């Protein structure tokens, strides 16, 4: 390796290398300063000290669980939370939420929602008011940066309008970012599939599902396949284009051997022949599409929540 070869090599890669360095700087700046979980840190530590109910996560207002069952569930949730870095809150109710929903909508100047959404309003407010969130209580700024966690609200009361039992799974912060609508549906399915045999079992299975959903990817040490594909593509293109050695560019053109003023158009004519018009029926398309994955909505108070509901 002589000097020229090295200089050439550096020259050839310097621009890309500088870009990588700049992005790296930004990356280090943007990354959370405390790594949430690494191979060495096997459990998360919650930064939230403001929860209204302290360590309590299970609110069995419907009284479906025995004290023992509640304690088991609490300790299981506690264990899972440290593993996934998200709060898990379970609320059981056995009351009509119609009045509550009416009041909520009036307070926030919203249109009245349908019965399946009563539980949603309840879940949002329960989360916000009681200051849940593994990292910190949710800041109601419409972003998904704070208040990490999942809430399950199961209202066993059959609303008279529909005669159905409604359940809501709400996601906030990290959990909202991570959960898609399909995944929320799936978690609720898992809950429904298991609650018939034993209510506690249904809830435990739900928590296990959340643990699975939020734990599998939280340690983002796995390389993005996309990045590897792009890099492989770059390598391929580079090798292919450079393996083929070049000969030289053509440096003559159409006029090279034409004597000065030696090219003359004796006839240069563009004659109009005819014209035809065709028409196609094509009414303007009425485009209307509503986006929002993961059931994203904003609570009356301004907090961003995801979620989805089921009924039985």
């Amino acid at each position: 390796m002589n000097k020229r070869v090295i200089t050439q090599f550096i020259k050839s890669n310097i621009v890309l290398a500088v870009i990588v360095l700049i992005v790296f700087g930004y990356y280090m700046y943007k990354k959370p300063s405390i790594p949430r979980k690494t191979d060495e840190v096997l459990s998360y530590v919650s930064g939230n000290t403001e929860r209204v109910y302290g360590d309590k996560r299970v609110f069995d207002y419907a009284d479906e669980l025995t004290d023992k069952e509640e304690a088991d569930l609490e300790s299981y949730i506690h264990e899972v939370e440290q593993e996934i870095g998200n709060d898990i809150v379970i609320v059981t109710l056995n009351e009509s939420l119609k009045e509550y929903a009416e009041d909520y909508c009036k307070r926030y100047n919203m249109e009245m929602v349908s019965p399946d959404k009563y539980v949603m309003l309840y879940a949002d407010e329960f989360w916000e008011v009681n200051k849940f969130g593994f990292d910190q209580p949710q800041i109601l700024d419409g972003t998904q940066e704070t208040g990490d966690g999942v809430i399950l609200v199961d209202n066993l009361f059959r609303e008279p309008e529909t005669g159905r039992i409604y359940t809501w799974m709400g996601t906030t912060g990290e959990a909202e970012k991570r959960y898609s609508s399909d995944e929320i549906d799936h978690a609720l399915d898992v809950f429904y599939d298991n609650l018939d045999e034993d209510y506690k079992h249904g809830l435990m299975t739900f928590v296990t599902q959340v643990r699975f959903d939020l734990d599998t990817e939280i340690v983002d040490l796995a390389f993005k396949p996309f990045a590897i594909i792009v890099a492989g593509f770059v390598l391929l293109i580079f090798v292919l284009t450079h393996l083929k050695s070049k000969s030289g560019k053509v440096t003559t053109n159409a006029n090279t051997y034409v004597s000065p003023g030696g090219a003359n158009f004796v006839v240069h004519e563009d004659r109009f022949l005819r014209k035809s018009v065709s028409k196609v029926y094509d009414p303007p398309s009425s485009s209307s599409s509503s986006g929002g994955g993961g059931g994203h909505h904003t609570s009356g108070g301004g907090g961003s929540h995801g979620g989805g509901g089921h009924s039985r």
Partner: protein
Amino acid sequence: MVFSPKMQKMYCPYCDGTDCEEKRGDASVTVCYSCGGEINADEVTSATKCPYCGNYLILDPRVEGEYEPKEILPFKLSKEEAVTAMENEFKKRIFTPNSFLSEKTLENLEGMYVPFFLYDFKSDADYTAEGTKTRHWRSGNYRYTETSYYEIIRKLDVDFKKIPADASVKAPDSVMDLMEPYDYNANVSFDPKYMSGFNGEVYNAPAGEFIERAKQKAIKSVNTLINDSVSGYNTVTKVSSNVSLDNDNTEYALFPVWVYKYSWAGKEYVFHVNGQTGKVVGTTPVSLLKVIIYGITKAGLTWALVEMISRLFGGLVS
């Protein structure tokens, strides 16, 4: 005495003078004037280097009479300048092996006068085509498309001067085409003195053998001129096209080319440098190792970049 491209004069490497006269040998030699060694020249060689003493000599019968070129374009680029031209070109081609253009291999760089025929043509071309222009608009629930049809007629006369085609079988046609253009303004009447110090060839076959290549260049040029004159259409469909060429004059000339032969990994690579303009033509050997090192570096940097970006803006791509 050899011709010095730098001084554009005959130059004597022994006495360092430009005016000393040296007697050239008689017309029928196949032995070296200097050392008497036998010259193993093939039938198209007009000037060559003696393999024993290294002197260049001109085979006079091959540059006289019917073999006398009308014009010669003397070397403008000295050997050193030819090397510089290749080095500059080589900088851009990063994948050549390191031994390329080393001092030792540069001994294989030799100047050569390549025989060319220069053809003049009077061409007239007829061309007709159908062109369409389309316009779209919308009215109510309908989309309208209006297509206008035009007949495009062109008649083009072109006067071509001195389209070159090399008259050497050894010189690869594609390379010689890429050597172009030469600036004919520097052409001078032939004098054998310009050939001293260089290899040379006489035309390998009569002018008629090479005219087809020149014709193809003329036809290509005519077609380009016509196509350039047709514009503003959405589609153009050629109806008829005819180019007729009349060759009214042909000249025989010698053009200067530096030839560099380089062997690498059992393969020979030949580079040609235009002895007037310094344009370099040749297929560089490619070092697989270099390509892989560069490729992996670039791929690695790209990977790091995409990886960080996709993590920063997660969800977009994962």
